[in-house]
């Protein structure tokens, strides 16, 4: 299992697109703190923020893009043809020849991804919160450790969500489109929460309640939010594992 994990880690970190994901994840949120410093200060002065403890955490939303890219490419790279001359040959063929037990393979892949994404999430969250304190000083209360843990957990779960969805669709474009759009201002999940309050429990919306006090118009307790999102991810992972075990590679 250790050598399998080692192999999956090397494969993931050997991908150029994975490094893009790593860089985006590390840099996007801290950079946004600087970019939006002016307008945030103005918003605080005008009293638009009812809860300034959300400040640093809100910026993190953009950083999870990195976790998404990592979750997608760890699977989509296996399904991409390895060469122009042999469109039938894919990395997955070699991977499965070396490790035919598919459940173990998926576990190792997921563990490697979790490891990378957790480190990324922790480093970025701490850096972003520290920068927010540095830029805005005493305007921002010092972050509660529980919320920090919630943010890192959200980061990891988003990575695993992307992983599970890409395994189900076997196509990076579909997952990337769904997840990137839902991160943005034209989030479909967010739109649905305005139509029906049940949509508050969609994975990407409910997860944000783990570390943000104000998400949309509804309130969900952080622990409930964590449990609901974990349940979503676990269910999707189970479905992905079942499909991966049964169908043609």
């Amino acid at each position, binding site marked *: 299992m250790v050598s399998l994990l080692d192999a999956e880690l090397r494969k993931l970190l050997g991908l150029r697109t994975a490094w893009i994901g790593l860089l985006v994840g590390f840099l996007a949120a801290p950079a946004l703190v600087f970019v939006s410093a002016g307008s945030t200060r103005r918003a605080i002065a005008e009293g638009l923020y009812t809860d300034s403890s959300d400040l640093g955490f809100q910026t993190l939303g953009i950083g999870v893009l990195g976790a998404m890219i990592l979750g997608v490419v760890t699977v989509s790279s296996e399904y991409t043809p390895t060469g*122009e001359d042999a469109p039938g040959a894919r990395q997955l063929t070699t991977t499965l020849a070396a490790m035919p037990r598919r459940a173990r393979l998926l576990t190792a892949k997921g563990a490697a991804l979790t490891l990378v994404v957790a480190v990324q999430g922790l480093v970025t969250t701490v850096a972003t919160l520290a920068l927010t304190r540095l830029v805005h000083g005493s305007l921002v209360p010092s972050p509660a450790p529980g919320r920090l843990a919630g943010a890192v957990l959200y980061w990891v779960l988003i990575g695993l969500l992307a992983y599970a969805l890409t395994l189900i669709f076997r196509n990076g474009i579909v997952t990337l489109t769904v997840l990137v759009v839902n991160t943005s201002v034209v989030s479909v999940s967010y739109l649905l929460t305005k139509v029906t309050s049940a949509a508050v429990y969609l994975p990407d919306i409910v997860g944000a309640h783990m570390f943000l006090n104000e998400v949309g118009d509804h309130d969900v307790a952080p622990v409930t939010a964590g449990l609901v999102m974990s349940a979503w991810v676990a269910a999707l992972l189970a479905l992905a594992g079942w499909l991966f075990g049964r169908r043609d590679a």
Partner: protein
Amino acid sequence: MNAVRAEVGKLLTLRSLALTLGLTWAVTLLLDALDPPGGSVLPYGQVGFLILGVLATAHEYQGGGQIRTTLLAMPRRYRLAAAKAVALVVLAAPAALLVAGTAGEPGGALSLVVDTLVAAGVGLLIRRPVGAAGAVLIAYEIGLPLIRTHWGEVNDWLPLAGVLIFAVASVVFARRDGADGS
């Protein structure tokens, strides 16, 4: 003219493109039927046209290396790039009208066509469907809104930027290796 016809033929017969357009229209129709408070559903249709543009150029670099055959048949690369742009606009325009009409804003069709062209330019530059789709989506859905909140409106510049991106992509396309996507 033959080059344009060939490109139109390729675009018309690709299943992934038809699927993208079908899904785009279906999502627009569905969201419009839900009638969400807070305005337009056109931005959701826009996402579909971005993917359409990326796939239209990047699909030739997917497994099988269609681009080699294409370049063998049509070695004049600037003309090929222009034919691709014309074919894409010819096909995207009626689809854009349909989707924009469904969203209740037929005037938005033109910007959808421009977005498709931008995405096609990025697809031609990056040569990988997944990477290009990620880049275009992040630029449009995360980058542009950020620029709008911090530096002001940019919509007037998008058509110019679109033509520029496609022009740069054409020059790069004409000057580098044909097939090697690695």
